[in-house]
């Protein structure tokens, strides 16, 4: 059972709380992604779990063992570094075998484990070469093989794919995900790339300024961000945020936007208490339906003007102007709407994420997650 528990962990550098009172539990065999912009503390948190940074408050428990005061070598972990940290003076074989030799295993056992790990990473023929003689992508595989060979139950990865070129990265993403599932390790994976996070993680912990802002499975984080920061950070393009005043009439709650209105489908009292005040409407580009026209029919549709059309192959990304704000919407690739066209928007109220205008924090329960609208 390699469950990882982080209890009120804080790591301080000088006056800065790089990791600020973090609580997180990672279940056995779970793939947890720590996601956030640079400087948010995700790498520091990972290194704290590894024992490479000393924490100043809190506890770290690995597999029911408290490891808070233990040095890295006693924590039974394996780590893959962003720069791979493959030892230049050793062969690929000796690199992968390094940790095993530290454990004083027999030659036969070392050989078996090294070859097994090398096979899993498809670098079996490179074993006798030196790191300088193999490509960057292959060095990355050596780093992963070295960690896997330890068979330690806990694997920590610090942006292992960020130094690979784009195509290789996509390949390795799928390979890694499958591999880590096969070897049944509990994994903490740090990245600043939200696509990686969504594609690989069982759960994502979004971090900002040393704190965890939201933890959840990818779809939840995508469709029901806990605040404006998460909504803007996850998804490509970021979630649209429109401000409007919440009003009430006989039909219920709504906001008036762009000459039309968007009805509130959530009938919770939390949102109701915001009547008369400004709220923020968060809606993803793929949940904004765009139709040609200028709202002369006065059916309450929101009107906007199309500014830019970006044909992305699988869909078109439209940049629309709505008064002083802009938002993004997607349409089918053969949609005739072009720049400078007047359009009408249909926003599905069930997909809207309502946020408090001042704090940016979400109001009310999560919107429905429709499997038909998947992240772009």
């Amino acid at each position, binding site marked *: 059972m390699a469950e990882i528990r982080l209890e009120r962990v804080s790591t301080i550098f000088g006056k800065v709380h790089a990791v600020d009172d973090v609580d997180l539990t990672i279940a056995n065999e779970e793939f947890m992604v720590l996601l956030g912009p640079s400087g948010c503390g995700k790498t520091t948190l990972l290194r704290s779990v590894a024992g490479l940074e*000393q*924490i*100043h408050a809190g506890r770290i428990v690995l597999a029911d063992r408290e490891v808070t*005061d233990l*040095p890295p070598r006693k924590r039974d972990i394996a780590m893959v570094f962003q720069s791979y940290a493959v030892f230049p003076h050793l062969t690929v074989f000796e690199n992968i075998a390094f940790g095993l030799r530290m454990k004083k295993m027999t030659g036969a056992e070392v050989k078996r484990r090294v070859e097994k790990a090398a096979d899993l990473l498809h670098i079996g023929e490179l074993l006798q070469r030196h790191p300088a003689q193999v490509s960057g992508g292959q060095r990355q595989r050596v780093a992963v093989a070295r960690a896997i060979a330890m068979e330690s139950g806990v694997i920590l990865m610090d942006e292992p794919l960020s130094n690979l070129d784009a195509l290789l990265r996509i390949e390795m993403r799928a390979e890694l995900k499958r591999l880590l599932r096969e070897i049944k390790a509990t994994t903490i994976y740090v990245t600043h790339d939200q696509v990686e996070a969504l594609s690989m993680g069982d759960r994502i912990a979004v971090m900002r300024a040393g704190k965890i802002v939201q933890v959840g499975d990818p779809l939840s984080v995508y469709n029901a961000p806990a605040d404006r920061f998460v909504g803007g950070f996850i998804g490509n393009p970021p979630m649209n945020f429109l401000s409007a005043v919440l009003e009430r009439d006989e039909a219920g709650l709504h906001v008036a936007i762009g000459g039309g209105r968007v009805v509130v489908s959530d009938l919770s009292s939390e949102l109701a208490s915001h009547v008369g005040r400004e709220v923020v409407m968060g809606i993803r580009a793929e949940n904004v339906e765009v139709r040609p026209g200028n709202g002369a029919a006065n059916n309450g549709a929101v009107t906007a003007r199309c500014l830019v059309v970006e044909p992305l192959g699988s869909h078109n990304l439209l940049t629309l102007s709505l008064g002083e704000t802009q938002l993004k919407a997607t349409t089918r690739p053969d949609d005739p709407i072009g720049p400078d066209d007047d359009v009408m928007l249909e926003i599905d109220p069930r997909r809207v994420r309502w946020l408090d205008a001042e704090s940016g924090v979400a109001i009310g329960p999560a919107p429905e997650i429709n499997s038909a609208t998947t992240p772009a």
Partner: protein
Amino acid sequence: MRSQRLGWAPYALLLPSLIYMAIFFAAPMLQSFGLAFQDQSGAWSTASIERMLRDAQFQRALFTTVALIVLIIPIQFALALAMALVINARLKASGLWLYVFALPLGVSELAAGIIWFNIFTERGWLNTILEGFGLVERPYIFLNPQEPFWLILAVVLAESWRATSIIMIILVAGLQSIPRDYLEAADVFGATTMQKVRRVILPLLRPSLQVALILRTILAFQVFATVIAIAGRGLTVLAAEAYRWYGDLRDVHVAAAYAGLILLLSIISTILFLWLLPTREEQLA
């Protein structure tokens, strides 16, 4: 309570060096000042310093030392800069050029002095070349104690020859840290080589130049064996006087006074260079 894992480690690693420097550096330094301000009986007085100042050789030594420095430094820096630029131009076999230019690094003051004595001596190579080109009829006695001019010139050449490599290497390292983009931008904007050197390279080379200047000048104040090897007793410099008072005249106090003077001059020149060539770190930012 968090255990401070290995917080003491760096200090433990530094300690031996600090202790060593305290014993073999700080202590002797202070002692040296003490010695200089004592007279021969050990009592505090400025007698030793006065002895130094009134000594017949003092002015000659001071003058010669300063003259040497004033001549050597510019020559060396021009040479070193030229060498560094050549190395930086990446000619074929630049590794070989680097080794050749760096050869004098392994040459001691003493050996360099003897080498140039060999060249300037009456039956030496310089006379051979001069006579070969018909510039003189008979070998000229360059190393004549009555003609300090040639003696000083020979020492200047010897020291320039010997110590240019160190400066060249510092400059090459500095040159290589200049981002290529700056030089390419200068090219695109139409700069000639001379303009590039004056307006891009030299300013960016300032930190290296400053360090090299300060270092070389401090070392030049201690010039010793080169002078003896070339001029024997024909020339004297501060360090040689220090040695003479220590060894021949057996007065450690005056010797220490000379040493203190050398230190003082070193400090003054350092401050001078720091003032004349302030480095602006933001140049590379």
